[in-house]
Each structure stands twice: as structure tokens, then as C-alpha cells.
């Protein structure tokens, strides 16, 4: 038995994320030269390292308030594309910048598609916000086969990982914007302007 900072006791649980796992995951992030591949490798490695059923990385659509799948691994295509994930209905507090731990999906009302989750064979879900500049820009969700007692330290580790994903996503977004401007300028030059 251990005690948390509030003095409440809780079951001792296995800590799965250590520095070796962190090194492998961060190296995968650093070595990928585009976000699609980086995000896919990230979800694959998390599934392998934490022995998960699946993992999905979402980007938040600020206009529609939907979570859009950026990368996913381990879940069936039917489940991944089951329908729009509205932040108001789907584990919404994630986007209030807090991690959400659903240790047993049979004992929660936070899911937008609870029956689909059961049919998929999901037992527990951890949802961690991806934050940049104090704003939620996405979410990282881990899906476990069974009910899951994730340790506080592993949740902290996931938050650190999510912060780094936020940086990578923001960098890629800026890079895409600059490239779009460059292509547009190239097009303008091709219709008669002198090159700079």
C-alpha cells in the first residue's frame, strides 16, 4: 500500500514507463521527418511498451470541436472511424487540460460510444490532453484490454510525452504554413513576375 500527496491510500500498481521506454519513444519522435510517420510510430511504440490494446493520437478541430484521428494503432478500422468524436460528449474534460482515467469502461458515463468500446474489447481508457501555449490542441488516448490501474507516475510520464507531441505538432503546423506560402509565391512568379 502506498500513499498519494493527499494522504489517501491506493493500491500499489506496476509502473510501466521508465527511462528506457522514454528513450525509445522520444527517439522515434526525433527521427521522423514528418508528422504522419512520427505519430504512427508513437502509437505503435506505446502499444508495444505498455502492452495496450490500442492507442490513438487526435488533433482538435477548433471550429467543429471534434477530435480528428491523426494516427491510430491496434484498434479496428470500424472502431477508429465509428463516428465524429465531439469534445462535449467524448471524455470532454481531456480538453480542459486534465488527464482522464477510466479504469473500467463498465463503470463510467463519460464515453460517447460506450457500446462500440465494449464490442471492441476495450476495458479501460486513459486520455491525456496535448497542450501548446496553454491551449488544448489534441489528445492522446490509450486503450487497454482489461480494467487498468495505471500508476500516478505513468500518468505524469504520459503528460510529459503529450507536451512534447504538442511541440512537434505545432512545429509541423508552422512548417506546413510556410511551405504553402512558398508554393503560392512560386505560382505567382510563374505567371509573369520577375524572380526575387
Amino acid at each position, binding site marked *: 500500500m502506498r500513499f498519494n500527496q493527499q494522504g489517501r491510500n491506493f493500491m500499489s500498481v506496476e509502473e510501466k514507463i521508465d527511462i528506457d521506454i522514454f528513450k525509445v519513444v522520444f527517439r522515434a519522435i526525433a527521427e521522423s521527418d514528418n508528422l*504522419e*510517420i512520427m505519430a504512427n510510430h508513437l502509437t505503435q511504440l506505446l502499444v508495444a511498451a505498455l502492452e495496450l490494446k490500442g492507442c490513438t493520437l487526435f488533433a482538435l478541430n477548433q471550429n467543429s470541436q471534434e477530435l480528428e484521428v491523426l494516427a491510430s494503432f491496434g484498434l479496428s478500422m470500424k472502431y477508429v472511424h465509428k463516428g465524429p468524436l465531439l469534445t462535449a460528449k467524448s471524455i470532454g474534460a481531456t480538453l480542459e487540460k486534465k488527464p482522464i482515467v477510466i479504469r473500467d469502461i463498465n463503470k463510467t458515463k463519460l464515453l460517447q460510444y460506450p457500446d462500440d468500446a465494449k464490442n471492441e474489447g476495450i476495458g479501460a481508457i486513459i486520455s491525456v490532453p496535448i497542450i501548446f501555449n496553454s491551449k488544448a490542441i489534441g489528445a492522446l488516448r490509450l486503450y487497454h484490454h482489461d480494467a487498468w490501474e495505471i500508476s500516478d507516475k505513468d500518468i505524469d510520464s504520459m503528460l510529459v510525452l503529450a507536451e512534447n507531441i504538442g511541440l512537434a505538432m505545432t512545429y509541423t503546423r508552422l512548417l506546413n504554413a510556410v511551405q504553402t506560402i512558398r508554393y503560392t509565391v512560386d505560382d505567382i512568379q510563374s505567371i509573369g513576375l520577375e524572380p526575387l
Partner: protein
Amino acid sequence: MATQKLLLPYNFTRFDQKALDFVISTFGKLEEVEVTVFNAYTPVPEIETAASSVTGKLKGSLSYLSQKITEQETELKTIKQKLVDNGFADGRVHTVFQPRKKEVAGEIIDIATKNKFDIIVISHKPGKATRFFTGSRYSKVISALKDVTVCVVS
């Protein structure tokens, strides 16, 4: 009439399903059209073997990753079967399931150029936020290819 080669990039989304339905309704009765359903998957990342402690931890799980990728290939074959069930001759439908080395748009451009496809049917969901991070797939394909008919299903 010479055979028209049609490429259908497919990633199992609702919009890909619409693109599939479009291919069936528009080209299903044309015998001279040959369809290739294409999916580029992300291969399992290579892990440095020097980090033996990590390799040990991940060893069992990596085979699980490979198994999930195989399942994805099986799902792609069900798409081929749907085309066959809806009028395409079995010999006129092919699947290509290959590891990707670059972004998906680049893989589509490469296969379309290398295999000289005449038509590409690609799905597009307007207003997606992910385009800010990964770029717009269909616009990259359209701007990179020439002498190809690109149908965008939105």
C-alpha cells in the same frame, strides 16, 4: 478500347467508403477499367538493439504489432471482395499493401507515376484540422501529377 487503370487509395475512413461507392457506381459496369486498391501502412519502427533492456521489454509486443498490420491487410482484401461482389471481375481488381517511406500523398504520387495509372479516385473531407499538420493529401496529389484524371470524392 484500351484498359483504363484506376487507383483507389483507401484508408478505411467514411470518406474512403464514399470513394469506393463512387467507383462501384461509375466504373462497375465498364469492362475496360482495372482497379487497384492501395494502402500504405507505417511499418513497425526499428528499435536500436543495443538498448537490450528495451528490446527485451518490447520483444513480445513487437510481434503483436506485426499481427495488427497483417489484420489491416486482410481488411483491405475485404474491400477487393466488395468490388467483386458489385460487378468487377476478380481479375480486374488488385490490392497493393505496402510499407510507406514518406507521407501518404508521396506514396500515392509514386505508385501512380510508376505504374502509369489513368485515373485516381481520392477522398477528401473539407475543413479537416489535421490538414494543418499533415497538409492536404488531395491537393498535393493534384498538383504533382499530370496526364492523370483525378476524381475527388468529398
